[in-house]
């Protein structure tokens, strides 16, 4: 019997099994993406697919509450020695884009199925239209590389050799994929052995009862944290810069409903399914891991020592309307769902910032560009490498500056050392580090953005900066913070040929081209004029801000490095605006002066009642119509008129609410 005295013992054992899986994976994997970046997951899940054992410090933190139920149910029965595999986002709602190859293995004990050991690796490339398989520009899943439907890679211990051949035939770097797959197999085998030892130690019945107790405890901890959040309904929305190349903003909207110790995450009002790859294939599952990442972070921050597993999410449910960016229909491109997932994390933090303003940090800006390069070595052989993430810093917290270079929800990835990248591919780095002036001003400053600049040396070089965002609308700050800056992607900076690459995520380069990427600025917290003068001076000394910025943004006047106390006092004693909960950039304010919440809500309500395949097209037509009509007329009547006109032209039904 597992009780309050022994619960941590079993939990430690189960997490140890997941740790062992993660260490085995890292020891035996082949790709830099696993060894250097740590983009992978390992779990132990119940017979129903609910995660109850997680690595404590390793891998991507998105999957602690993952539900493998949909995948496990793909096979009517399992035999000892089975290992199943899939990367298909349209099967079982566990894989969420093609590079994530998931495998799972049943753990039998004395003939009884007891649990599964599972995990995934983000493969650098799985074939498809672009190197590294992912680009926002792709419009259907068929362009995103090979899809392996759920299949037994090992059937009762016997390998199906066809799978490896299938992978080898369809990807750009087969040795890397197959090396990583071997590592995954080693990892689940270690997990299986560990779990058997654990079950033998505790006994099968005690183990099964204890697993439920582990999930129950995590649930109770989460409920305890939520019960301290004031009841209420909190709406927050944020935008991807573009819903397609040169496209329109795409909104992720969240209504957070807190009642007692429960929470509802209602994503109604989010954009329709898009014609680019920003869609999230969640299947509408009310606890899909991808839409719960932000909540998991918030709970882990509010309740120190909380156990993270599927039980953590029991007090929450999400509403994910079908045919939207948070629940796309089959066929949709989904490769860049991580950009949208970042937005779900951001709006979750934003909504909680209304509920518990004294505890919530500004969000990391998202749009953490994952840089890949495909080029040619001197001997003409193709060379390809993941050269690391380039994003913004962490958002400022109510107690401290944001973490520089990466932080908050983007703090889990490791970079690739410059020396490794230069040894792997013939490119020459000119700069890698932190970009001065990029952390938004605040009582606590946002973290500085990362910057990377390099020169390519071969023709036909393709640089992808996938996941880029925030090149138009900057991240928001909290409680009177200053404005953040946007991300930048530039070819040949500082030359007559300088070219702003805008919000794109793919650029073809020639020898000698220099590429510069700067992450988006992270939001600040509180009025910057209340920041201690010493901190402002220290920021100037270390180059985080300029003396001009100290005066303009912080009201601290420096003369030859010394504080001019009188001038500073004069600036700082002037009246300050009342701090608003959120600080938005000018671009968002301008956009929302036309696209008010009311207008956007009307549009998403209208689109929700049109066929899925029409929605993206109609959205663009509606935006065009609003641009033409201007924002002066009363919103409701104007939108009704636009909807009516579009329906008439295309022979669509006008929904009753808008008739």
């Amino acid at each position: 019997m597992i009780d309050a005295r022994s619960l941590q013992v079993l939990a430690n054992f189960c997490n140890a099994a997941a740790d062992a899986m993660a260490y085995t994976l890292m020891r035996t994997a082949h790709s830099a993406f696993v060894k250097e970046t740590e983009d992978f997951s390992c779990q132990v899940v119940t017979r129903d697919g609910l995660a109850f054992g997680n690595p404590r410090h390793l891998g991507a933190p998105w999957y602690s509450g993952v539900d493998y139920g949909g995948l496990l149910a793909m096979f009517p029965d399992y035999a000892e020695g089975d290992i199943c595999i899939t990367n298909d986002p349209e099967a079982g709602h566990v894989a969420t884009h093609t590079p994530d190859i998931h495998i799972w293995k049943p753990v039998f004990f004395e003939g009884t199925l007891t649990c599964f050991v599972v995990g995934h690796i983000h493969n650098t490339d799985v074939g498809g239209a672009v190197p590294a398989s992912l680009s926002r520009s792709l419009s259907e899943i068929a362009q995103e590389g090979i899809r392996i439907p759920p299949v037994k890679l090992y059937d009762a211990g016997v390998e199906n050799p066809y799978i490896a051949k299938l992978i080898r035939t369809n990807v750009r770097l087969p040795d890397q994929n197959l090396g990583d797959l071997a590592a995954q197999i080693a990892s689940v085998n270690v997990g299986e052995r560990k779990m058997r030892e654990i079950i033998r130690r505790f006994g099968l019945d005690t183990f099964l009862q204890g697993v439920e107790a582990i999930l129950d405890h995590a649930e109770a901890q989460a409920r305890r944290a939520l019960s301290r959040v004031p009841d209420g309904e909190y709406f927050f929305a944020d935008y991807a810069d573009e819903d397609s190349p040169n496209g329109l903003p795409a909104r992720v909207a969240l209504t957070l409903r807190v009642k007692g110790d429960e929470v509802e995450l209602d994503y109604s009002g989010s954009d329709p399914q898009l014609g680019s790859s920003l869609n999230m294939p969640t299947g509408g599952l009310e606890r899909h891991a991808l839409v719960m990442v932000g909540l998991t972070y918030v709970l882990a921050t509010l309740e120190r020592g909380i156990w993270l597993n599927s039980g953590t999410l029991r007090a929450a449910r999400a509403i994910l309307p079908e045919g939207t960016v948070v629940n796309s229909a089959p066929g949709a491109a989904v490769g860049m769902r991580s950009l949208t997932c970042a937005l779900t994390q951001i709006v979750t933090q934003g909504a909680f910032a209304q509920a518990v303003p004294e505890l919530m940090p500004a969000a990391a800006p998202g749009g953490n560009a994952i840089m890949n390069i495909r080029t040619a070595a001197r001997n003409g052989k193709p060379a390809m490498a993941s050269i690391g993430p380039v994003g913004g810093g962490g958002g400022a917290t109510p107690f401290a500056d944001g973490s520089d270079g990466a932080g908050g929800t983007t703090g889990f990835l490791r970079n690739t050392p410059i020396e490794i990248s230069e040894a792997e591919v013939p490119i020459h780095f000119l700069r890698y580090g932190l970009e001065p002036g990029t952390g938004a001003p605040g009582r606590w400053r946002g973290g500085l953005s990362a910057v990377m600049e390099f020169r390519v040396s071969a023709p036909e070089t393709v640089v992808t900066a996938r996941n880029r965002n925030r090149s138009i609308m900057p991240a928001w700050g909290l409680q009177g913070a200053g404005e953040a800056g946007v991300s930048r992607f530039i070819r040949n900076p500082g030359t007559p040929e300088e070219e702003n690459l805008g919000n794109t995520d793919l650029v073809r380069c020639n020898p000698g081209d220099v590429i510069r990427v700067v992450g988006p600025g992270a939001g600040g917290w509180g009025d910057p004029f209340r920041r201690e003068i010493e901190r402002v001076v220290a920021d100037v000394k270390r180059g985080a801000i300029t003396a001009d910025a100290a005066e303009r943004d912080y009201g601290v006047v420096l003369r030859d490095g010394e504080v001019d106390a009188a001038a500073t006092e004069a600036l700082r004693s002037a009246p300050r605006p009342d701090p608003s909960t959120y600080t938005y950039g000018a671009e968002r304010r301008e956009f929302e002066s036309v696209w008010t919440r009311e207008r956007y809500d009307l549009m998403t309500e209208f689109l929700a009642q049109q066929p899925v395949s029409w929605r993206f097209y109609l959205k663009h037509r509606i935006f065009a119509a609003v641009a033409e009509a201007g924002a002066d007329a009363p919103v409701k009547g104007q939108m009704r008129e636009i909807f009516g006109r579009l329906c008439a032209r295309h022979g669509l039904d006008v929904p009753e609410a808008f008739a």
Partner: protein
Amino acid sequence: MGYRVGVDVGGSFTDFAVLDEGSGELLALKVFSRPDDPGAEILQGLGQLQSRDGVSPGEISYFTHGTTVGVNTVIQRSGPPLALFTTRGFEDVLEVARLKIPEINNLYSRRPAPLIPRDRVFGIAERIGADGAPQILPDREDVATQVEKARVSGAVGVVIAFLHAYRNPAHEEAVRDMLAELAPDLPVVTSSGTWPVIREFERTVTAVISGYVRPRVAEYLDRFEAALASAGATVPAHITKSNGGVMALSQARAEPVQMILSGTASGVIGAGFLARECGFDKVLSLDIGGTSADVAVILDGTPQFGTGELIGEFQIHIPSVAVTSVGQGGGSIAALDPLGVLTVGPESAGSTPGPACYGRGGTRPTVTDAMAASNLIGHGALGYGAVSVDHDAARSAIEPLAVGLGASVESVASSIVDIAVSSMYAEVSGLISRFGIDPREFHLFAFGGAGAMLACFLARELDMKGVVVPQRPGVISALGGLIADLRNDFIRTLFVDVDAAGVAKLAAPLAELEATGRAWLADQGHDGAVSVAVSADMRYEGQSFEIEAPLEAGWITAADVGAIAGAFHAEHRRLFGHANPGAPVQLVNLRLVVSGPTPKPKIPKPPRATAPAAPERQVTGWFGGVAHDVPLYQRAALLPGHEIAGPAIVGQEDTTTVLPPDFTLNVDEYGNLVLTRSDRTGGDQHD
């Protein structure tokens, strides 16, 4: 003939291990450490050795010494203000680190502040390519400008770490030479001179730590040398190293980072030596003190080596004995979480205020208190009389938890031990998976003050072969220093294909490495036998990482492509389960370890027992919350041939061995206690 002396200066105690070269016998001594007056403990110990054992300082023929002064400098951040010179454009290397934040689920988490803040980092306009070719040469005027800025910033030393210096150190050395003229008063450390391996952050932070600890280490070594001289010891002293070897004081002054983990490394070396001598070929060493619990893998007496060992908040990347921290030792605090679930750690009472039962101000229940409340420790003086155990205080500390859980103090105490052991199990599991070993083939070799107290509990969870408690668990680190070989690591980054043309390029660098290695040994004052081990970091072409495979020097001199590639294929197969013998192989680094063996003591065999072991008395002890009559033995009374069925407690002045009811104790021919599970079957088969 004289005496060879090994000394390990720890936080609380200083241990001496002395080898009588004439008789081969080993003496041990323990005195209090004197952090207030470093060197004083050495004088005191040498004095006692003379009065007690007749060892006069003049008769000391060899002296090794391990200290925590380096690691403490980092943990307390008490080093001097330094400047860092980087390649221009890459000045944020310490700030960015490897980007990942320490607590990936916590929105408040931040990376630790670097030891050199950003306003004392200066970019130098220079560049070397990934192929080692100079692209932009460092300019003296530029360097002069930067060093002036460094002075203005208050720096009293400079660390130089340029991109690709592992491949070609020329620019770091050129700037170092410029600084010697421009600023001869500023000591300089280079990354290539510290340890020239690829990965700029790791190499830079290691060089920074080396520079950061250097002044305090040098000051300490001066005091230490003076203390030795004033005691009349004339022999040049040696210092134990993180790589498990020893070095002369001159290298310790020049490369202080080499000694930073000397204490933990010596413990593993000592454990490995004893384990091999006593016939245990596969052991995990378990060293538990008041504030730490460390585990290392030892195969055939040889520890595993790695890089990236943790020093405070930072990793250092030099070849080190791989030691993994598996917990906070006996000081981990037990508490009820807000939902009433019992938890242990991560908070620790450390050595101050310490466990409640030590009566030094601690009031919160710790793992040591749980053992005391179970009445399994504290039946004699611990720590050579420095510590006494107050059983009532332990029970009082646990009482509130027992009330909260509605259970007896003894059963809660048992749960505290279970939880502490389960979190150690979790850490050891990670270690096991990192090395890919099977714990069921291993003995747990327990030392440190609390190792033998908890070892059986951990060995049971890991289904290990058994537990070994050596005769003097407290002196293992000092012994390790005493028997450690002179040892140094060398590396050369080459990037050649493993084919006829490429392998032909290896002989010259190997000869250079070997000459450098032999010269190093001679510098250390060594004139005996020399052992050279060669290995290489290799990979398949296109693979993004290397693995280290052992080589024979003869393969390189004979340009034997097949043997060199074969060694790589074999190692790849061992690690990953597969190899691709047809694929082209690249050799990235050539490595060489040179060592000069030191004399080893005989491990004495005590006389065999002639009568059954007699317990001193019976006590009531609790295992799993159940009371047992537990016989209490004195260690000195246990002789080879004795067998004791659990439960039992064995007391000795430096530790307490706890034998649970399901274990049996045997004393082997060397006097080690070997504790095995009475019903152990061996578990299921390794996959």
